[in-house]
């Protein structure tokens, strides 16, 4: 691997945003294609972060600073990706459902998905069903990702799916769900397309639903 990309990978693992940004600039100056910087530098590093999390080496704080460092690099890279016509892996609308103000899980999922090359439209917390529907209409998203931390707000995931059905959008978008009280059984019972127990596995789920893995 190119030494600049190798250094970039280590910077992401260390959560060193400044060095990641410096190395993205250096890689661009060395004429490494933007798509290569993305897949072999940033995405590869975030894949490793996910693995370290699953192995119990990294915890949420380590993951958050790695993802933030990756995001810094990605911001610099974005115009070059557009210029080179590099398409995102998919477009995902994310949000914590209505009545729920918890965002750390949703933020982590967004960061990991972004780190896997997806484009994220983050609707934030306490998102009503109509806002998910509106975003699905305007953004032509491939996936809607919903999060809930409270057992009392979990039923609102079903309301979003019903609203998508009413708007005749359900066939054109996949729905994935997660959050502490959410289970595979619950996901199936509300007609979601998938469930992931953590941010790392949410990425694998999104890739698998879009036929990317």
């Amino acid at each position, binding site marked *: 691997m190119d030494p600049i990309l190798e250094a970039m990978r280590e910077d992401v693992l260390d*959560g060193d945003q400044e060095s990641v940004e410096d190395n993205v600039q250096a890689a661009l100056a060395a004429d490494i294609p933007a798509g290569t910087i993305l897949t072999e530098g940033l995405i590869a590093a975030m894949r490793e972060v996910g693995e370290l999390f699953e192995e119990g080496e990294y915890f949420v704080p380590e993951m958050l600073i790695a993802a933030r460092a990756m995001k810094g690099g990605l911001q610099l890279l974005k115009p070059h990706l557009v210029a080179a016509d590099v398409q995102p892996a998919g477009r995902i609308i994310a949000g914590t459902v209505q009545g729920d103000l918890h965002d*750390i899980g949703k933020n982590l999922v967004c960061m990991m998905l972004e780190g896997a090359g997806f484009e994220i439209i983050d609707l934030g917390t306490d998102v009503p069903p109509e806002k998910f529907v509106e975003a699905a209409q305007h953004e032509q998203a491939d996936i809607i990702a919903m999060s809930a931390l*409270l057992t009392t707000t979990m039923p609102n995931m079903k309301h979003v799916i019903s609203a998508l059905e009413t708007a005749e959008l359900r066939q054109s978008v996949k729905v994935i769900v997660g959050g502490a009280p959410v289970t595979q059984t619950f996901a199936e019972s509300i007609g979601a397309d998938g469930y992931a127990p953590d941010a790392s596995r949410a990425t694998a789920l999104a890739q698998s639903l879009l036929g990317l893995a």
Partner: protein
Amino acid sequence: MNLIDRVIAHPGRMVVPLMGFPGTQLTHSTIWQNEFNARMQFETIAALVDRFKPDAAFFMMDLAVEAGAIGLPVVFPQNESPTVKHHPVHTIADLDQFRAIDVLYDGRVRTYISVMEQMAAALDIIKGAYVIGPFTLAGLMMGATELAIATIERRDLVHAAATLATEVIIPYGQALVAAGADTVCILEPTATFISPHAFDEFSGHYVRQIFEALDTIGILHICGDTQHLIEPMCATGAQGLSLDAPLDFPAAIAQMPEDVVLIGNLDPVRVMTNGSPAEVRAATHKLLEDMAPYPNFILSTGCDLPPETPLDNIAAFMEAGRAT
């Protein structure tokens, strides 16, 4: 008497579901009414005790009492847990706004102290109180994401927030003990996402101080998957660990000293809320069977039961628990 001695002296397994909210079905009340009115909440807890005859009863789990008492903005829905809406602490100086506040003058703090006084006067089982954990209160001050990052990049800020949290929690806990609490359970859910080392530094260190300051049985409750934290949790001086459904309980108890009691862990949502009474009975029997070799175990739920938990399921849990 220590918790382990009480557990061993008890005839049969102690059975203590973590319930509070489902009691609103018995008193036809809202969560909001119970959070603000001490008599209402006492009636709800007393109704649960009367109906299900558990070996201990806690008042309602409410992670916003201390946060509200220091002035963090709390939202109170009619029938859901209250939540802190904004997190105003970004620097150590931001903590100064809380320093002059005496939490014992707060209305909701007084409500919970009064609930405990009424429980102590009327109930002849073990009476338990909850207080928030220092790391979790720091998270409500700062926001969970900012707190997580600060454990790596701004450790001094996390320590300052956790120190202040500890200074808030101790007098409240002492007042609850004075009101008659036989045990105080520290709720520290936010610590679930940090490493064992970070737990020891940012949570365990302060939890230990709180237990030392409270002359009572200390229990530590953390929800979610806490397998990696069992050892540092035991090092806090907790006499009991109340742990959640994702844990493999036989594996967890094998890591614990024999004088620390493990409390749990029937799934509060998948089994207790969404299951049938037959499924509750089967899951309870299985847990009791798995834990049969261990005397230092209290049969409980992994976390607090949601308000809509069918009362028949709580009855099935108690019945299956008593059958041993």
